[in-house]
């Protein structure tokens, strides 16, 4: 059984991205209305908007949180060709409740791109505060804040030119110190003749450069999203790709003579699963915290979930979709009527109906 809590987002257009902070207690939303909004969860579980500001002069595509070790920091990227870093400032002498005295300031505006910035992601915190952006012109940029206590200074550390326009990127979150930093980049280039649409880059400590390790040749259709799975100390990396279907790929570093000598990792690429369930283009992929369930968003209007079982094979487990019939929703509200008035301060949940009701099989 699932329960749903409805939060009125108050954006004037569709939301492009929703991101949660490290603890899942804060939410940031961004939209074509050029605004970014930040929401906080109260102790009763209610979500309250605490900030809202016009962040860009174009659609805001993505919003993402930095690790809380760096404070309360957001990054956004936009159609207006910029990416920005925002920090929340607490006013002087905040009271115990401390609400209302906070606001977000733009710490930096990254204006190097000449086209729409399509994705922005903070790097793993073990490397300090790094930020990667990618853009329609096909350039991946890595920025760094050398002094993590001063976020107004960012330096452009690396620029990597990809041969195709970039639509999305993902840092490898591996906690293993032996793994060099790795970024996967996807391209939504529409021409299959241009070859693979997913590129894997790695930072080489010796040459101090990002080099391309691999182009995943099996994916030639446009790629719209890409996500590394949280690494549980595995020797290989798992990458989810949103393209014409949902693809799950294992990347295994191969230790042969050649790679040991050159210091450049060689990857063995294997497709572990391919799901056509959406029967349409796939827009987004997202892993749960432990990397056991993948959720994907498709053009069929559905969110689908895939779970890994104990022998590492993947199976679809659930589907979510929008439903305009209000009947079932309102009847549930009526049933919950008493509870709602009794705890007006707490979050209100709607019980969701399920179509194939396996959970409701009579047990006895």
């Amino acid at each position, binding site marked *: 059984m699932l329960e749903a809590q409805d939060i009125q987002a108050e954006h004037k257009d569709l939301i492009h991205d929703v991101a949660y902070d490290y603890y899942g207690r804060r939410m940031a939303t961004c939209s074509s209305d050029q605004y970014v909004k930040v929401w906080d969860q109260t102790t009763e579980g209610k979500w309250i908007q605490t900030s809202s500001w016009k962040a860009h002069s174009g659609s805001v595509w993505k919003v993402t949180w930095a690790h809380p070790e760096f404070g309360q920091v957001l990054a956004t990227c936009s159609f207006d060709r910029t990416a920005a870093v925002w920090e929340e400032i607490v006013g002087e*002498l905040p009271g115990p409740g401390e609400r209302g005295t906070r606001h977000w300031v733009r710490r930096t505006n990254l204006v190097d791109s000449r086209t729409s910035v399509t994705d922005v992601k903070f790097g793993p915190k073990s490397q300090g505060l790094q930020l990667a952006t990618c853009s329609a012109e096909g350039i991946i940029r890595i920025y760094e804040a050398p002094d993590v206590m001063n976020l107004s200074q960012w330096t452009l550390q690396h620029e990597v030119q990809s041969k195709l326009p970039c639509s999305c990127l993902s840092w490898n979150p591996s906690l293993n110190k032996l793994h060099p930093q790795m970024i996967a980049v996807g391209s939504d280039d529409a021409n299959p003749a241009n070859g693979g649409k997913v590129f894997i880059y790695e930072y080489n400590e010796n040459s101090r450069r990002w080099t391309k390790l691999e182009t995943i040749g099996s994916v030639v259709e446009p790629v719209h999203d890409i996500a590394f799975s949280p690494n549980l100390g595995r020797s290989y990396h798992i990458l989810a790709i949103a393209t014409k279907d949902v693809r799950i790929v294992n990347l295994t570093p191969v230790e042969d003579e050649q790679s040991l000598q050159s210091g450049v990792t060689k990857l063995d690429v294997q497709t572990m699963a391919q799901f056509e369930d959406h029967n349409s283009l796939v827009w987004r992929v997202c892993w749960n915290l432990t990397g056991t369930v993948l959720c994907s968003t498709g053009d069929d209007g559905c969110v689908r979930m895939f779970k890994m079982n104990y022998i590492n094979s993947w199976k679809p487990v659930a589907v979510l979709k929008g439903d305009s019939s209000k009947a079932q929703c309102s009847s549930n509200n009526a049933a919950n009527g008493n509870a709602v008035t009794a705890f007006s301060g707490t979050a209100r949940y709607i019980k969701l109906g399920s179509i194939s009701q396996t959970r409701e099989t009579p047990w006895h």
Partner: protein
Amino acid sequence: MEKEIKTFLIPNDLCKRAGIAGTWLALDQISVFAYEKRNIRQKDQPSHFASTTQSSVFHLRQDVVLFHPILRKLVNESNGVFLAIQSLISSKNADLRLELFKISRQYRSIIRACLENLQDEHTKSEKSDEKLELQNYITVFYSIECIWHLCEILFIDTMPGNLVLSQLLEWVSFHFPEYERNAASMLAENVVGLETRSEYWDTVLGALLQGRIKLVRALLKQHSSSDNSTYRLAEQILKAMPTFNGPGGSSLNELNMQWRHWTMDVQSKIDSKLFSTEKNLDLMMRLIVGEEKAWIEIQDKCEVWYAYLAGWLFFTEPTVKSFELGQFAKRAITKLRMNNQMKQLDKVLLAAMEFDIFQVIKEIQHMYDNGWFVSHLTDLLYHCDRLCDLEKEVPDFSAEKLRESFILDYGTTLMGHKSLWQVGLTYLDHCPNDGLQVIELLLPRIHMDTEAKAQKVVREAKNRELNNVVQSVCKVQGMLSMRRGRLGNALSWALKSQDGPFTSFLADEFLQNYIKSGRLSSTDLLDNLGSGMLVSDRLIFLGKYYEFHKLYQSGDYREAAALLISLLASKIIPKYFWYILLIESIPLLESGDLLFSSNDTFTIMHCMEEKKDVPELKDKLDILRLAATRNLSRALTFEAQIIE
């Protein structure tokens, strides 16, 4: 283990029209919002959904029944038993089998206690929806107990020779206790003529099917015609029934023989129409000899097929072996024409009787208990070595991985709860492959709404030597404290994680605050820095400077002066703080007692000339020079006297 795909509907029109996107939120929630992919090659203009409808974000969470307060005891107590198994296994106890059997019973008694609790609440409850919810829980945990008990009989507490009947009857009578209860209440009245009670014959037959022969005899004795010959004959027959006294008693062959003689005797008495006057007794006797027609007659009295099965086996196959159970079970189900009405519980019980453990596990993982049952039972069966056979039967099967995947899921679920997360940790601790990594991912994400909770998280991380987690949590807490203007707190977190750069940053903040306000804050902490201050030079300076302050304030000017000189001579003074130190040396230079030697004074003068361009020092420079030269003359005179 595959299952059907469930579909959930989000009741929102915009979500329907635009489509939806989903993203994970924390551990167990999914966030869904109306979404339409925008192509960056399109013109950037409002979508056709702009401003028409309010867009919403939906947070979907799984309804975790285990988080219901009434099940808290079950979660905590079963955790104790789970941990007991794990230490039992590592201790290599001699009689593991017996211990594991005890463990199984402990689990069951926890479920029963939980059921009692639920029953109580259900009776007390007055709200209809609450009652319904509790009723659902009761159904779920009743089924769990029923399956667990059968699994215990078949897989954990196996009898020598695989004889299973007596336990099977016990199991049935435990789950259908009403015959025994009725009988007890009737017998307690100790009156003759019990047959006037409407439930009398039902109770007699029920007791008979559960193999409770003594009870049957006691009930028959209270029949008003118990003295007549037919009743006496029945009594004699029942009394003469051969019983199996466990493996120590008569051998199986002997028993079989005795049984055959006994039933032949009963059959001949039936054939001689000795019971024809008492149709109930006649029915009982015909059941005893296993007459098909008689068993068809009582079919409807059996609530469930397994009650029927146990009774039927008792009279026709008293030495049935556990591995034969499956075929008899199927026969019983066919006889009762239940093949098409098998409920979930029936299916699981049948699978257990067929020794299809894989199927049992497959079915019970879908129960509405968030994996409590499947993870605890699988763990127990794994430690009983009951899963290793499956490795040969099921392709790609790994008993260890299966166990771990359930324990991991269960532990992860508990990690999502604000007070059960520590219980969750103990499950993850016993996942040898991925447990520690999952802890490393989840532990630092525990919502730390209080410092005490953060301390708890740090302790748990330290216990597992997860230094990364310790450092990260301390850093986050330090940053939080700093943002709230609580520098002392921030510093103590920074010290806890031995974070050099952050400590230096905070020490700078302390010193800057001092410059602004003339006061040092958090003096308790600075007092007790000890060797902790070695983390950063800046902190050493702060600590020493505070010491100087204390000495000065308590009037120990000589020590204060000595400390000041050693600070000036050191290389750890921050640039922005030089002028403070120099200015603060003025009163000491001008002190009535001579505090600085000529050498000390030279040090001060040297520093002073080096820093004379510092703007903050500008208007103090003259006074400083004057004070220094005056002190120098005093010191030189004094030192000259001493030499003389």
